[in-house]
């Protein structure tokens, strides 16, 4: 035991034996300072426990051993949300939940979100910026027959079916890749999802890139440099995101899987860079395997607002966040905005761009808003019921009654204004 102690202490400090790290994202715990207060309230002890759990020597070896045993003995893949379906097909639990309608937002909210997106589209069109929606595919839609038996599939509505319905009824340009992939399955040899990836396969992504260019050309009447899939390479060695779920399992053995297809691409470059459109993609992780250069000859610039949070763009420093920029100021200068989300993340359509629209675009000038606030402030003073509510809220927030009145007045002014817009 003492020998084990010494060995793992030396390893954790000096990493004498080279060990491959674990795949996946987990936050390294912060070690708190040893002070009387931190000891007394237990925060030092908890932080040291978590720190040691994360950093002890040979940890990756032990984690992989545990994961391997769990998989071999119980067919239980370890990794946040991993579900092993039939035929060794890996799913993420939250994609399944969406498919089954467990996370359904409700028809009214979705209908309302689509209406607001139409308003956003009209605004952007005034500035010669096009907006379109691309619905990425969900793996449970593509492989429903491989879901584990304990998932009881029924006819309950889900976010995808409702969004798809209302988006298509609207005037928003929509490329529904989810529907397209399901239709294409079985018609082409190349798999559009791999057994071990959560996103469209690399081949599927190339197909989407090709289709996206054609869709843009056709819908917005804009000539584009095309990409062509000239050939397919087959391989058991999966590349990039084709086995991201398998990597997350962190096991020693390999999951049995079929060959994956890799497209050999030819790109046109007839249209000069200056004549190519600029694009902003607001999307989830599905865009990553298109944002790897395959579209570089079709667009003059691509900016990626990852989950409408972090920006990847030649126009901004790395680590720039969406909340730190004037979103509409930037979008107005682009040719195309694509909102690209898989069924799981269609909820982003309810707030991405929309909240900023009201903040940045539709907030009237300061004089108007100040006048509205004063009106509401006076109305509060004349209502006993309202003032009682204000006093209670002020007490809870530990602020003065007057400050609370101005806060409420500000809220009422903005709400009143938004209702006018709607």
């Amino acid at each position, binding site marked *: *035991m003492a020998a084990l102690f*010494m060995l793992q202490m030396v390893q954790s400090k000096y990493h004498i034996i080279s060990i491959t790290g674990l795949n996946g994202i987990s936050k390294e715990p912060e070690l708190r300072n040893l002070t009387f207060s931190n000891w007394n309230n237990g925060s030092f002890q908890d932080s040291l426990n978590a720190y*040691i*759990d994360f950093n002890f020597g040979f940890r990756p070896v*032990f984690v992989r051993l545990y994961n391997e045993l769990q998989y071999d003995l119980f067919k239980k893949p370890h990794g946040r949300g991993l579900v092993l379906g039939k035929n060794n097909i890996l799913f993420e639990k939250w994609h399944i939940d969406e498919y089954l309608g467990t996370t359904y937002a409700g028809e009214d909210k979705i209908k309302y979100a689509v209406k607001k997106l139409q308003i956003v589209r009209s605004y952007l069109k005034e500035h010669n910026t096009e907006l379109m929606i691309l619905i990425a595919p969900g793996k449970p839609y593509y492989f429903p027959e491989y879901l584990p038996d304990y998932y009881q599939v029924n006819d309950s509505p889900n976010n995808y079916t409702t969004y798809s319905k209302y988006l298509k009824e609207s005037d928003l340009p929509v490329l529904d890749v989810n529907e397209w992939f399901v239709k294409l399955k079985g018609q082409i040899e190349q798999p559009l999802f791999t057994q071990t990836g959560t996103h469209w396969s690399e081949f599927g992504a190339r197909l989407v890139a090709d289709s996206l260019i054609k869709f843009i050309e056709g819908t917005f009447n804009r000539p584009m440099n095309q990409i062509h899939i000239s050939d397919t390479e087959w391989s058991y060695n999966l590349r990039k995101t084709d086995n991201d779920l398998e990597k997350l399992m962190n096991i020693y053995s390999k999951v049995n899987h079929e060959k994956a297809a890799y497209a050999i691409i030819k790109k046109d470059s007839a249209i000069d860079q200056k004549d190519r459109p600029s694009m902003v993609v607001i999307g989830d*992780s599905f865009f990553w395997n298109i944002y790897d250069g395959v579209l570089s000859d079709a667009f003059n610039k691509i900016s990626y607002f990852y989950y409408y949070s972090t920006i990847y763009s030649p126009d901004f420093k790395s680590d720039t966040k969406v909340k730190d920029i004037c979103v509409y100021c930037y979008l107005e200068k682009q040719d195309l905005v694509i909102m690209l989300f898989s069924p799981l993340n269609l909820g982003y359509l309810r707030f991405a761009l929309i909240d900023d629209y009201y903040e940045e675009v539709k907030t009237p000038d300061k004089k108007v808003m100040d006048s509205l606030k004063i009106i509401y402030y006076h109305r509060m003073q004349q209502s006993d019921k309202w003032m009682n509510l204000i006093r209670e809220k002020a007490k809870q927030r530990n602020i003065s009654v007057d400050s609370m009145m101005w806060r409420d007045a500000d809220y009422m002014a903005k709400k009143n204004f938004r209702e006018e817009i709607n």
Partner: protein
Amino acid sequence: MVFSSILFTLFFLPLFLIIYNLTPKKLKNFTFLVFSLIFYAWGAPVFVFILTASTIANFYLVQWLYNIDEKRKKRLVAGISIFINLGLLAYFKYANFFVENVNMTLSALGWQHVEWTRVALPIGISFFTFQSLTYTIDVYRRIHSPLKNPFDYLLYIIMFPQLIAGPIVRFESIADQLQNRRETNDERLTGFYRFVIGLAKKVLIADVLGMEVNRVMEMDFHLLDSTTAWIGILAYTFQIYFDFSGYSDMAIGIGRMVGFKFPENFDNPYTAKSITDFWRRWHMTFTTFMRLYLYYPLGGNRVSTKRRLYFNLVFVFFVSGLWHGASWNFILWGLIHGLFLILDRVFLLRFIKKSGAFFGWLYTFFVVVLAWVPFRVEGINNSMLFYRKMFEFNFSSLYLQFIQNRELFVILVVAFFISILTLSGFGTKLQHIFYKTGISNKQHPAYFSVALVLFILCIATLAGSGFSPFIYFRF
């Protein structure tokens, strides 16, 4: 600090063993004491001072008690010592419960509540209070003379292997070992094997079952079906056994590594063929304490009437239930067992003898499982609802639950078979092999290899079960 953590198994314990073994014999107890104080202060940074002060005070009280000749004065001083120990327990463990019940009564009468700030429960208080009591009472009864050194006494009370979850070590059984104990490589290795068995029971079985138990117990019981209810309570039946006996094994193992021989705490309780038999096998150090320090002073079996005998049994089990936790649920659990002990004496033991060993085992297991319901489920009403759900006999979800969680079912079956292994002769032999002491040099390599493999599996489980990465950043 829990035994089943990376911090304890790969850092605290090895560091303690290294330093302890390098320390000269004269200072070993002091080293052990320092590490025990750190261990306790880790979880109870403030209470460690109260514990230390009350323990030192009790040491001097009992020293004085030992030197008193006059019977009345001796009894008074013993009474003061017992009062201080039980007083601390009563305050920290039962004051909240007492005030809650007073306030409930006052509410029912339409009177104003008593204002009260809830008191935090210091870890291990039930165990070290009982150990403290055995010290006072064993010295009072002149079973053993008191310790000469207050630090040795503090060590006896606070030594970390058995501080949190027992076994309850009576002073008389350990007094001589505090001054004089045998530490050999053979004992160290045997201790290590025992520790690993305990760790495996806790990490590979109890914790796995515990996850399912928590899931079931957090559900709305109105939505439970019989499958889920039975799986939940069976999982708990084995979780509590493997957790508790695992901790005892670890405590006994660590004790052995430093030369202490702690008493056994479990003897295959789920092979019991009556409730009477169950209590000879379950938490044996606790039953011994209750028998010697409560049941016998009440008269035990040697009372003049059956009514008094039954009262003694009910009272002892009322106190047993209360000792386990400050709530009516634990009292109910204790009373269920008390009732069946009475029934054993009235007719059940004779009936079981006639019906055969298998029937005796089956009925005992069934009663014990049912009694665990109020022990685990919060609230009497919820316990009754849980019982109702168990006996609705709706098992339609059994197959779906099995395919969704194969690991649980495998561990349940493994736990069941390990628990009843010694019902067969083969099982008893196997147990002797695993728990063997006096292992020869030729046999140590085999034992060490198995222990090492188990130890690695446990560390892997501790490391892996806490690791749940995201696939990508989501911000």
